[in-house]
């Protein structure tokens, strides 16, 4: 057999306090889709950053097409034909789509950018990705998270690539967009481009993957496993070191006994959604399913007062909330765990415990003075129950892995003890093991009498966790009913074609 495209061996990378990589081996062949699996904090993103030249390894060897290379900067990785799409997108909001795609390698002569040419080529790349509806002239900041993902892909393809690395690309995409992404991946593959694909969703790995490498605690514990035929139990056992039953907690049957806590009547907000009516009782979990852009997140934001309603009312415990006032919602006991952890949730340079207590500071303070002892104790408790690793609450959130950052945001709202909890993509980027713990936790909260509204791009998650499901399409509710009475196919039909299907 000829040399593999890429061979990494014995890679070590230590951060103070953590050996993020502790002897990792990875071998990627030309034209294959190689999946990386591992729990939150296992070292996947760090490995990727070593490969893309963003981090320098402390030890270990990287061979590219049989020759040993050193990747000292992101640019040198790009020159070898290695492109990366990071877990946290790294684009410039103020520039246009085309400018972002060619950022750093602008098409220019004598310092003058060729705008027309740039736009033409950018349009071609976007079309190749099946997204010709995105104009290269559009300002990046106006795109959705999924749109930005596409631009990020186009940017990777704008180089002459042999290997594309994708760190949890599907986390910001809904199912239809994931399908489109997979089509692009297969096209690339047929052109001989290799892909390193990271995801916490095993179904995806079975669909696109060829071979799997499993990381655990910074080491390679298995490599070259066939992606389609390795049993799920085997994969989760390798990842976590234990058997995990990937199940949703049982629903307690309650026959409309709880009192209505949240009631939303005829709610509308601009063109995002309209005529939304539903009630959530104490102890009930209501799930909202729909595509990205169907108005799911906007409904939560409007209930929370972070967005103005143009019609309709929101009532909590019989009291109508003032339109467009977050403080009113918070005062009534409503909590929102937002969709984008970085831009809407976290203070990256601050300690974990300060992030956790951000919405509950008042409880740990007397006359404005914070009792840091009890604050830290309460934060550590929740951090432990969500299995955030490393466990220390004093480290800056920036140094945590993506999935662990997500758990910190979630911990904030668990600490708050709300009457109504609005969860927008609560398990984005969270690994299999921690996921079932989060499900159990949400159910437990509901059992304690909290009214929960759940938004998720993963239909099985909505169906498995919620008691009742609302299906949205283009800002309109097209179906309401108990989660037991509907299955994934039906939801997908509704989501794409509406009630006509």
């Amino acid at each position, binding site marked *: 057999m000829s040399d593999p495209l890429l061979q990494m061996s014995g890679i070590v990378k230590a951060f103070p306090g953590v050996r993020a990589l502790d002897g990792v081996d990875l071998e990627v062949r030309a034209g294959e889709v190689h999946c990386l699996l591992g729990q939150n904090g296992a070292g996947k993103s760090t490995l990727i950053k070593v490969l893309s030249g963003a981090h320098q390894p402390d030890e270990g060897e990287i061979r590219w097409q049989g020759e040993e290379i050193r990747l000292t900067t992101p640019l040198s990785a790009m020159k070898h034909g290695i492109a990366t799409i990071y877990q946290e997108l790294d684009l410039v909001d103020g520039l246009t789509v085309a400018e972002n795609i060619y950022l750093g390698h602008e098409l220019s002569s004598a310092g003058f950018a060729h705008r027309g040419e740039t736009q033409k080529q950018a349009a071609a790349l976007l079309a190749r990705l099946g997204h010709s509806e995105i104009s290269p002239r559009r300002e990046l900041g106006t795109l959705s998270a999924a749109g930005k993902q596409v631009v990020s892909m186009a940017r990777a393809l704008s180089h002459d690539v042999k290997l594309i690395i994708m760190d949890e690309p599907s986390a910001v995409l809904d199912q239809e967009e994931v399908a489109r992404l997979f089509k692009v991946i297969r096209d690339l593959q047929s052109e001989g481009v290799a892909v390193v694909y990271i995801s916490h969703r095993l179904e995806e790995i079975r669909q696109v993957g060829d071979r799997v490498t499993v990381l655990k605690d910074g080491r390679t514990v298995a490599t070259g496993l066939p992606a389609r035929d390795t049993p799920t139990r085997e994969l989760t056992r390798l990842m976590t*070191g234990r058997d995990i039953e990937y199940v949703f907690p049982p629903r307690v049957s309650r026959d409309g006994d709880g009192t209505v806590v949240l009631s939303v009547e005829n709610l509308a907000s601009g063109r995002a959604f309209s005529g939304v009516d539903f009630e959530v009782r104490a102890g009930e979990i209501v799930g909202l399913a729909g595509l990205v852009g169907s108005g799911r997140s906007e409904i939560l934001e409007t209930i929370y007062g972070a967005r103005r309603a143009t019609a309709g009312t929101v009532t909590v415990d019989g009291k109508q909330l003032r339109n467009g006032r977050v403080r009113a919602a918070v005062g009534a006991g409503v909590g929102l765990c937002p969709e984008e952890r970085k*831009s809407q949730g976290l203070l990256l340079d601050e300690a974990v415990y300060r992030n956790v207590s951000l919405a509950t500071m008042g409880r740990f303070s007397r006359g404005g003075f*914070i009792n840091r002892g009890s604050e830290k104790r309460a934060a550590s408790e929740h951090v432990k129950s969500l299995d955030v690793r490393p466990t220390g609450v004093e480290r800056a959130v920036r140094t945590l892995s993506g999935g662990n950052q997500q758990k910190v945001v979630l911990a904030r709202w668990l600490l708050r003890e709300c009457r109504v909890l609005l969860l927008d993509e609560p398990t984005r980027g969270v690994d299999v093991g921690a996921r079932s713990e989060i499900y159990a936790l949400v159910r437990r909260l509901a059992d304690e009498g909290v009214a929960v509204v759940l938004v998720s791009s993963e239909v099985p998650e909505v169906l498995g966790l919620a008691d009742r499901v609302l299906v949205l399409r283009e800002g309109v509710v097209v179906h309401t009913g108990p989660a037991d009475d509907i299955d994934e196919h039906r939801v997908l039909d509704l989501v794409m074609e509406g009630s006509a299907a």
Partner: protein
Amino acid sequence: MSDQTPASPPAGATATTPPADEHRRIEAAAAEEGETRSGFVRFMSSPFGRNLGLILALLVLCAVGAFTAGDRFVDTDNMVTILRFASIIGVVSIGMTFVIIGGGIDLSVGAIVALSSVWATTLATQTMAEDTHWLLMVFVACAVGVGCGLVNGILIAYGGMAPFIATLAMFAAARGLAEIISEKRTQLVDVRGLVDTINGEFLGIPVLVWIFAAVSTIGWVLLNRTTFGRRTIAVGGNATAARLAGIAVKRHTVLLYVVLGLACGIAGIMLTARTGTGSGTHGQLYELDAIAAVVIGGTLLTGGRGTIVGTIIGVLIFTTLTNVFTLNNLDSSTQAVAKGAIIVIAVLLQQRVSVRSADSS
């Protein structure tokens, strides 16, 4: 189930058994961290260590002073003089630290200082103070400062104006108003109580320095131990996250400018007592000195991060520099050039140190 022997991996694959104790690596690393923490790391993360670069810069400056000016520099009286000069701009800088951490900027501080000094020394105020107590003048100065801060804050938070623009307008307006009220004349202070007390000494140390110390302490406690400080960091670090966490971002922004306004009012009365006058020309270029001191002190101009201790050292660096130059009879133009160089060097130093500690935290 977990004690079952691992199934042999599928053909063509290699697998090693996962280590039995999955937490071992992290725990070992944490223990390692715990050990070093007791030594170097703990030192570096103490206020002293974090500002190591700045303290070094200050020491170098002192060495230069001792070398060039000898005993005239290394002298208790001279040290007290430096502190006395540092005190007024220091009070303004502490207030400025809050505004900048909260993601704002204030160009009007010098003008507010002038306006409060003038308002506190008008004939009417002084007559009333003679009849009652000199503290009335202090109150007037503080009230003027708070009023200006309130206007700044409301324009920025509720009027949606950029801090730069709103405070630039206040910069022009407040100084203009000060000139109108004083009719461009210097107003002498006749209330002896004010001058005697605030420009006097307590336990051998100027009261001005005591005030600076008190304001610094309050500022430190406010930033590090209260919900107000925590919210300031949150608002400056990520305003969206702060808003969604239920923090009243607009109200807090107003409060930040009010705090700075109050600091300017206090500085205004300090300056009035020290010079024995109220004047529309007081506090010129305070905005630049204060912003420079804060930035030298390691506070991010983009907000979300900063320290009071850093600001204090920043102020001391500036005043010591002026002192050393004055003792060596160098003119103010040379001083200005040196100040510029110091800003650049200090910020570069600060960045290196903070990059390294961000890597290692």
